[in-house]
């Protein structure tokens, strides 16, 4: 049997999610045995040629060149999977979507004129069809391995769409929101991180993005009743998934 060809691509991002792939450690040898790594800049110099069975795409689209590059990746790929908050929702850099890009350029760079960038940082799914999205900042290695395994077994990956609270309750963690009025984003955030923050008595701050059908306004009402201002509430959402949380707030759908 021919090993499926896999490519790993990077757009605007910090490389952390690609590292999650390298962090598979125990499974890394199995990974290279089961897949033919056709393109992966973190691991090999091999140039990109031919078609791909799977493309793992990290990072958001924030330059003109990336816009055409992601289309080129899609065209040669059977299954395109986004990995991480940047690729799936635009990332932390999407904070610029709510400001004037020239202000940022002028504040950060000595010669702002040479910076070529789009005014917005956007998720891959704004540009091409995406087959599966892995959330997280960074992605969970377990979900990555599950998704790759599912491809080989020809089954749908078991990526959870339910809330972090479900995972939190399974772990038996005393609820920070109920017992301490902490502004925990768990009720509107997708499970998958393994409840890292609440396990350490820190409220969830949303690395895994909005869960399916997140009712964000209702949760913010709860936070406001315990004393948070409108501004504080907005700040809670404006992090690495700012774009996705804002979109989820305005999305029309059956309540």
């Amino acid at each position: 049997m021919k090993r499926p060809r896999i490519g790993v691509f990077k757009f605007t991002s910090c490389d952390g999610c690609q590292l999650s792939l390298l962090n598979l450690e125990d499974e890394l040898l199995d990974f290279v045995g089961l897949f033919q790594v056709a393109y992966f800049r973190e691991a090999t110099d091999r140039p990109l040629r031919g078609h791909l069975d799977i493309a793992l795409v990290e990072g958001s689209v924030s330059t003109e060149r990336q816009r055409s590059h992601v289309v080129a990746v899609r065209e040669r790929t059977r299954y395109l999977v986004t990995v991480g908050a940047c690729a799936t929702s635009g990332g932390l850099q999407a904070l610029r979507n709510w400001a004037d890009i020239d202000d940022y350029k002028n504040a950060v760079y000595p010669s702002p004129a040479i910076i070529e960038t789009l005014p917005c940082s956007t998720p891959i799914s704004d540009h091409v069809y995406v087959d599966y999205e892995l959330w997280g900042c960074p992605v969970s290695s377990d979900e990555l391995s599950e998704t790759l395994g599912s491809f080989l077994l020809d089954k749908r990956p078991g990526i959870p769409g339910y809330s972090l609270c479900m995972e939190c309750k399974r772990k038996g963690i005393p609820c920070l929101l109920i017992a301490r009025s902490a502004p925990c984003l768990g009720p509107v955030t997708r499970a998958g991180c393994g409840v890292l923050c609440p396990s350490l008595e820190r409220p969830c701050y949303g690395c895994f993005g909005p869960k399916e059908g997140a009712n964000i306004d209702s949760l913010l009402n709860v936070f406001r009743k315990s004393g948070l201002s409108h501004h504080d509430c907005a700040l809670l959402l404006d992090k690495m998934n700012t774009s996705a949380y804002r979109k989820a707030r305005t999305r029309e759908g059956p309540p």
Partner: protein
Amino acid sequence: MKKLKKEHLRILFGGLTESHRVIGPKIEGGVVVLAEIAVHDIPAGFEDRQMAGSYRLVTGERPEIFSFSAGPDSFKRFLHPPVSEMFAFKSSRTAIAITAPDCQGKPLAFIGVRACDIAALKLYDKVFLGGAEKDQCYESRRKDSLVIALDCSYPGDNCFCHAMGTGPSVMDGFDIALVELDASFLLEAGTIAGQRLLDVLSLEEVTEGDMKERSSRTERCLGMMKKSIRTEDLPGLIYRSLDHPRWMDIAERDLECGNCTQVCPTCFCHSHYDFVRLAGISPRAREVSGTRVRKWDSCFSRNFARVHGGNFRPSRRARYRQWMSHKLAYTFEQFGLPGCVGCGRCITWCPAGIDITREVEALRDVR
């Protein structure tokens, strides 16, 4: 019925810990949870203040050992663990080999089980043992477990067991039943296993005064219960209200987070996942090995109602309605028992503070 001096509770504990994992109340993160405990872990003297969507533990004035009410956990976490392996599998070109897990472990003894949870346990027994196929792990854990029940001295602020006909006094379904009095516990054995544990204790006779104290305590507990559900028109009310506008109003507030279902002692829904690591896949030999894992799930998870071709409960309105209807209507037909035992957990642990007692009442409003 006999009487045990309060300071001798530790002797009962001592006898239990030899043969059992004693599961009881303990403070963690400012909350009374259930865990494997020693007698001194019981948070004697603590009181919980509960509201819809709020819980605080305070040191109070109450003289009882069991001065607090139930927290988010119940027996469910131990008899039907949140994540458990159902079996390991290995498939090859010619066969599939299945290996059952060993769920035997040291038997469990639950101490301080409230009347509402005993009613929930009866429902659980029907769910996991009442059908043609029994859940083997549940069966082996349940068969060896001991239930040491407790009459509530104080209700939680969100309790309504009396309305649901389940408490606050324990009636049956126990190995030993405890009633806490000022200076002692009243004890009653409900099974031979329970009697054996009592036989080794130095017990006293119960006086008429003790019985009076017992009934006045029950009266006091009932008098302090703040919440209620009128049950006379259930389940009919639910069936008549399937298109009530209130469901829409709830959907505006509902977070669809599933906390209510995870803390509810009668919610039993779960999903199965086949978990295969990359190391378990060998395309050349056409072998796949992995485990089937069961996790608590919820009618509030979107995927829970996804079938081939779509999702038959696409809105929050439909999901909340399904949940409440299952609690207050469908379980009567399914198991002949109410699906809500009035423990109030879903009210306290709902971040949006959605209160089942108020929502049922709202369904009675003329539209």
